[in-house]
């Protein structure tokens, strides 16, 4: 089922949590709401769920206005950041809760509920934990039980608030891949909130980048990473060298580093800010067309070399990343090099 939000705004006192947000989530899609903490992404998720109400704007579920629909009737499955499992109930009772609170005429009989709960527990691969209490589970297991509980009511959309936020790095990676597979199996429209760009880029079909209550960019993970639309997205997604310089006649110059800037075709120079990915900078030890500099430090991180280069006295150090497959480091500290950007993005100001 599709979700659409139109012109949503929400204030908490003096704090503008959401500022005129309009978005569409297509049926069957897995979308990430990505942004720094306090950017309004969780508020947006809660408004879609009906746990919070917007000051202005509308929420449409499957094309129908659901702004005034109670959370009970919206048919959303919500997975809370800290799972919110009922501590006094077993895993089985937790998952069965949504079915057992239905009005009598809609409630499946006991055997039916048991069958459905066990099917869900099998789906999240935790059938053997049915009699445990939430206290007795690990973080990753609780997360999966919370998901099974949300799915038990056969929600039309699944909303997940920082689903992996409280887990350690290893479990987080496993669960991420697992969530993706599960989504491919179920095809229920899902929206999850995260502040972790890697998580968003790896798992989601589409990513919505939010900052200070506004949508910065919407796109596939590739679009978001390869062509960030705003300076914020450039800084937030992946690493980038942020440089100030001047642009004129289709080119921007940053301390000698030249980047194509077709939107700045005017003849008199204007101040600009440039963003260059570390792996978009070419280093040559001899000659070359780039700007001359000196290697300040070299470090190996996994299969990459991170090199810091100083170009000129007033310029900040340039971060460069090169693929590295073992063996000798091609550059040493103190060595004279030439740096040339292969790509970059220029914004006014």
């Amino acid at each position: 089922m599709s979700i659409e939000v139109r012109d949503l705004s929400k204030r908490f006192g003096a704090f503008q949590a959401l500022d005129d947000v309009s978005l569409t989530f297509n049926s069957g899609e897995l979308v990430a709401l990505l942004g720094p903490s306090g950017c309004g992404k969780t508020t947006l998720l809660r408004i879609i769920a009906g746990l919070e109400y917007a000051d202005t704007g509308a929420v449409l579920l499957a094309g129908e206005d659901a702004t005034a629909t109670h959370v009970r009737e919206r048919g959303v499955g919500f997975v809370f950041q800290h799972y919110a499992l009922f501590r006094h109930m077993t895993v089985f009772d937790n998952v069965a809760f949504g079915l057992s609170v239905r009005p009598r005429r809609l409630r499946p009989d006991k055997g039916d509920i048991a069958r459905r709960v066990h099917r869900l527990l099998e789906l999240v691969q935790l059938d053997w934990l049915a009699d445990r209490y939430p206290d007795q589970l690990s973080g990753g297991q609780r997360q999966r039980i919370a998901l099974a509980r949300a799915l038990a009511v056969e929600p039309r959309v699944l909303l997940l608030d920082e689903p992996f936020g409280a887990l350690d790095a290893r479990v987080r990676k496993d669960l991420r891949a697992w969530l993706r597979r599960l989504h491919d199996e179920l095809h229920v429209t899902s929206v999850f909130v995260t502040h972790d760009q890697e998580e968003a880029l790896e798992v989601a079909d589409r990513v919505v980048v939010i900052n200070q209550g506004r949508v910065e960019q919407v796109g596939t993970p590739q679009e978001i990473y390869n062509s960030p639309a705003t300076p914020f997205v450039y800084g937030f997604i992946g690493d980038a060298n942020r440089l100030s310089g001047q642009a004129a006649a289709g080119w921007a110059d940053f301390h000698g580093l030249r980047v194509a800037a077709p939107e700045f075709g005017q003849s008199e120079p204007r101040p600009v800010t440039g963003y260059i990915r570390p792996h978009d900078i070419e280093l040559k030890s001899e000659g070359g067309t780039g700007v001359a500099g000196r290697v300040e430090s070299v470090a190996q991180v996994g299969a990459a070399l991170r090199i810091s280069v100083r170009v000129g006295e007033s310029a900040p150090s340039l971060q460069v990343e090169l693929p590295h497959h073992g063996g000798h480091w091609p550059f040493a500290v103190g060595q004279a090099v030439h740096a040339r950007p292969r790509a970059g993005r220029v914004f006014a100001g």
Partner: protein
Amino acid sequence: MATLEINVSRVTERAVSEAPWLRRLLVGIALVFLLAFLLVPLFLVFREAFSQGARVYLAALSNPDARHAIKLTLTAAAVAVPLNVIFGLAAAWAISKFRFRGKQVMITLIDLPFAVSPVIAGLIYVLLFGSRGWLGPWLENNGLHIIYAVPGIVLATVFVTFPFVARELIPVMQEQGVTHEEAALTLGAGGWQTFWRVTLPSVKWGLLYGVILCNARAMGEFGAVSVVSGHIRGKTNTLPLHVEILYNEYEFAAAFACASLLALLAVATLIAKSALEYKHQRDRERSLRAAARQEEP
């Protein structure tokens, strides 16, 4: 290896705690106080109660006035405790789950009965419902008796026990926040279902604890009840008031016999409270042990 570990733990124990003599001194002071102010008096109550034999003891308790006092005390508690549970749950729910103006004022107001002397509490009701009070003439004309009658005693008891359940529940509920209720809502539960199946079970220990304390206070209250009761034997005397009357009439054995009932109630309350704490603790430990034992597949 084992001896090494023991040494290490001893060294760290010394490093993080006080000197042994200081610890013994502090524990000793606490024990002496407990003995002098609690255990010796408790023992004396029972010794005095049985000083003239078991027959006098039983006679004192089966005296019609004494039996009426016991009944009245139980009645007051039977009304005050359920009212307190309802009020406590409502207040704690409102304070911990909703955002509203004047919340802090409300929390302070709940504590008011703790802050004012019980005698003042009794006087408030005399001023309100007494024959010269605000509502006194109207009540009299309609044949309603509150002061120097059972309703006054119940009112005074309700007033002084007012904060107990709410006080126990507010911190528990505040700590738990609203996410469990929100989870229940998204799963389709209604307000009552959420209350009975999610909220109430999660605060049951705090609630039971509050009920026990509230009950103890309701049965033991003296000051406020004394003001509104009028001390009419066989009519408006509660057990604590009855004890005082007997004592003032030099019927020490009977007075202490009745007092021993109240003391027994206190002891039973303490035992119930420790049993609850013990069970709660054991539940937690058991689930933690099970969690530690369990392995990821």
